């Protein structure tokens, strides 16, 4: 029941280079697409009729002011919330309304805006648990958890990719804020997703850590489909292949960064330019 017919991603290679997935042409079919995706909370429409495509090899950045519905959109894609209407197609299969653990096992990983890790565990155990979630042995009740070389290796590789290998034995609660954000990403990677939903991974990071994270996301974009929610405009334009602007739950504009920048609608909505987006 755990496996769903999709082939598992290959093991990450040494040296932090995460995998060599079949490179899918950016122009090909999207791995994940939404059509008419809508979420209402009572009378409030948090996400309204959103249609977007995610391609392997592309970073699709979603920007917009607070309350625009970006996080709700992420929650709809990851299964944390069921949509009110619309469809979410993952490789041609409608996953709208599936539970978050089902969607995760189908290869959609997410990070949280508010750091969401296992604080009392070691950094390694955080990543190890994430890696364990991908194995059919997960329900083995006698052999000891650390005995699976493959899982350990995957956890180690994910930590290395996120730049945390030197912190493996630390308790997660004692990490700096920026390192906890890195761990959040490492856990996501350890589940070997093909689609990454990153909700403000740079929030609260110092300039050095931010730079590092931007490099990591860039590297990951080669073989993952990434949806990135971000307020940091430098990072947005450094990373975006495709940009979607959301306002009041609706898509205001979507296209290449250049197209969006020159869009009259966007310019009208953000008269002052970037600083409004920084909110």
């Amino acid at each position: 029941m755990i496996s769903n017919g999709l082939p598992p991603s290959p093991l990450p290679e040494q040296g932090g280079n995460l995998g060599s997935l079949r490179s899918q042409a950016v122009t090909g079919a999207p791995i994940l697409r939404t059509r008419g995706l809508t979420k209402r909370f009572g009378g409030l429409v948090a996400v309204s009729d959103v249609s977007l495509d995610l391609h392997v090899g592309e970073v699709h950045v979603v920007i917009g002011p607070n309350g625009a519905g970006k996080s709700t959109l992420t929650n709809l894609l990851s299964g944390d919330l069921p949509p009110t209407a619309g469809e979410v197609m993952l490789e041609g299969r409608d996953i709208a309304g599936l539970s978050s653990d089902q969607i995760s096992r189908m290869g959609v990983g997410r990070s949280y805006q508010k750091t969401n890790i296992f604080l009392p565990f070691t950094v390694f155990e955080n990543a190890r648990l994430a890696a364990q979630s991908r194995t059919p042995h997960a329900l083995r009740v006698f052999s000891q958890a650390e005995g699976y070389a493959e899982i350990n290796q995957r956890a180690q590789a994910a930590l290395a990719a996120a730049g945390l290998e030197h912190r493996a034995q630390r308790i997660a609660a004692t990490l700096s804020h920026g390192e906890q954000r890195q761990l959040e990403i490492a856990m996501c990677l350890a589940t070997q997703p093909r689609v990454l939903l990153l909700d403000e991974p740079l929030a609260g990071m110092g300039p050095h850590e931010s730079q590092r994270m931007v490099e990591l996301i860039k590297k990951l974009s080669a073989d993952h489909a990434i949806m990135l929610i971000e307020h940091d405009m430098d990072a947005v334009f450094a990373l975006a292949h495709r940009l979607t602007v959301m306002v009041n739950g609706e898509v205001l504009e979507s296209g290449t960064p250049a197209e969006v920048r020159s869009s009259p609608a966007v310019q009208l909505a953000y008269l002052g330019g970037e600083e409004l987006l920084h909110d």
Partner: protein
Amino acid sequence: MNSRLTKFLPWLVVGLLALFPLMESTFYLQLLTKVLIMAIFAMSLDLLVGYTGLVSFGHAAYFGLAGYALALLAPKYETVSLWWSFPASIAICALFALITGMLVLRTRGIYFIMVTLAFAQMLFFVFHDTKLGGGSDGIYIYAKPTMKLGEMELVNLEKLEQFYWLVLFLMAATYMLLHRVLGSSFGRALLGIKVNEHRMRALGFPVFRYQLASFTLSGALAGIAGYLAAVQYGFVNPEILSWHQSGAVLMMVILGGMGTLHGAVIGAFAFVLLQEVLSNQAWFGIAAKHWQLAMGMLIMLVALYLPQGLAGLMQRFGRKPVAEAADD
């Protein structure tokens, strides 16, 4: 605490306990048998409370059900073989836990506490108000189960010390089983669920299935304790399913320290022995009648000053200074 010492300490304790019948004190041997049975019961609850993050206030249901299962499975005036009545009683508990688990695990927090209590109370009234289990009087188990290997009597449960050794063996076996299970991938997933259920789900763990497995295992282990208790007392009545019993085992777990197996064992020792001491009329006179009052205050003190329970207290004395252990 020295890691080699921690590894061998449980064996040392079991070894010493095995020698206890040499003291030839019927009273204390029976008391210690009760303690060990309660230790199994407390460990089974700790699996839920301390390792899965589910506070059940109806754990007596599984304890009592196993006792009733033995009483009802055994022919009235003849002996029953332990070889089938024991697994059958435990299977009944596991099945009941599986079914109730499917319902109660849809709730969380205070609602989980209330719903588990409600199921236990339902079972209490089924046995209390119907003729099924002899009503409020309960049922006598006139003859203890037999453990025969062919014609040979392997363990004679009528003999106090042999029964004691069997209980001790099962207590150690429960400890070892849980120790293995909690160190496995399954156990790690349970701990993850306790710490951050939401994140476990986002990582792809089917949380409900893990919780249900834990709930079922916990119910089955409580059944071991309940079966043994019924054998020891020679009767069952609805009291063994009552919420007092659920509360007592929860107090043992809290007293000993949630989330440590040896804590549950220590908690069972402390609770049963305290109960014995505090209700001793020779020592406390009129106050002995109201031993619950003193017990309640002690539990409050532990909750306030020893959130890790008595096991945490031991660790505090045994641990090396924090500065030494932290950072590399």
